[in-house]
């Protein structure tokens, strides 16, 4: 029974050919959060990559940065219909983390401080497609935006780019992460509008 409300247009939304279907352009960076914001100090921060043998590969903050940071400019697409174009990021490529990790498993669960999870195919994390990001817009990531470090997988909807990243666990099957269990798509390609189950 919905009808257009006279005079209402909502927050300014722009169209652009670089936008995936159903997305609108924003200039700001909305904060989305499914729970309390974890406050993690870089001194205490640690990233753990668990392979299929159960063995852990660990990096402290300094060890992560020592792997080499790169500057990246990418578009990000949030499933709540906003897109930001040409966003400047800095982070460590996941190729560096997986260099010495042998695994037959094809899937990865990203784990966050605070308990958030998201599942991804391993191949979507390799070959320059994903990073552990530590800076955005020229400044260290704030806790609201996932700092000190978040996953950055810009070719998938942004809920896959888990904030407050603390671990990556190899999995034999594509088990569902947090939003994937509660209704969002197991893969999440914005160009195919893979939003929900």
């Amino acid at each position: 029974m919905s009808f257009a409300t006279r005079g209402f247009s909502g927050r300014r939304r722009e169209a652009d050919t670089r936008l995936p279907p159903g997305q609108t352009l924003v200039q700001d960076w909305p904060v989305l959060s499914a729970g309390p914001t974890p406050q993690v100090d870089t001194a205490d921060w640690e990233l753990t990559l668990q392979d299929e043998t159960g063995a852990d590969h660990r990096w402290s903050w300094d060890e992560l940065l020592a792997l080499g940071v790169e500057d990246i400019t990418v578009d990000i697409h949030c499933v709540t219909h906003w897109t930001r174009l040409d966003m400047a990021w800095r982070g460590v490529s996941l190729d560096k983390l997986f260099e010495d990790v042998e695994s037959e498993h094809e899937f990865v669960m990203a784990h966050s401080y605070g308990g958030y999870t998201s599942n991804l195919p391993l191949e979507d994390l390799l070959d320059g497609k994903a990073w552990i990001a530590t800076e955005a817009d020229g400044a260290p990531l704030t806790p609201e935006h996932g700092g000190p470090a978040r996953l950055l997988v810009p070719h998938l909807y942004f809920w896959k780019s888990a904030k407050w990243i603390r671990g990556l666990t190899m999995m034999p099957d594509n088990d569902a992460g947090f939003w994937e269990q509660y209704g969002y798509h197991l893969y999440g390609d914005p160009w195919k509008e893979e939003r929900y189950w």
Partner: protein
Amino acid sequence: MSAPSLASVGRSRPRPAWHVATVAETRRETPTAARLTLEVPTWPGSEAGSHVDVRLTAPDGYQASRSYSIASSTPEGQVILAVDEQPDGEVSPFLVHEVRPGDQLELHGPLGAFFVWRPGESDLPVQLVAGGSGVVPLYAMAAAHGAAADAAPFRLLYSTRTSADVFFADELAALTGPAFSLDLVYTREAPDGWPDAVGRLTRETLAARTLPAARQPRIYVCGSTGFVETVARWLQDLGHPAAAIHTERFGGL
């Protein structure tokens, strides 16, 4: 007055539904807020404290929905809302500045069976604590209490920036009497000759201007998320059981 059984309360509670509202009147409530009087022919009336979800639709189909407390409503189809403008907000500036008589809005409601006050349910006193626009559902409770001539004593502690920022100022003044008392705390500027300090609500003021735990008040706290969080914690420190404290967070900081 004997308490109605839960079963009968349940049966008489109006079912939520989508309604088309026509704006009958808009007026300034405070320097930052507007009062909207809506005609809703299908409206069933509501319990004091409940809210509606207002849904706006843009020409391209984009929709935004927000919750607003019902300041008053009648089964005869009138719903009054009071909306405070959030400067960078998406919906509240539209409702405060753009809406005019004759416009139609979609409402879902009445909603919420928990943050409500029902006449005759208990003889225990009631303490209301409001921050800013958080007074809207609490004003509805005080008005319902007055209309029902309910015997339970009511007291409202209302934190407001200045006297111009008081929502329903005349209505609240008119309700004041033996069964309802109003305590104001001015956070920015008080009227001339005001005896109390101007500034943020403190734990001491809360303790001094609210019913003590010994009187076992039922408590309703409403305002921004930060305000509600702080007040609810202080109330527990003052000995009120968590189960007696009902909260409604409006969001924000």
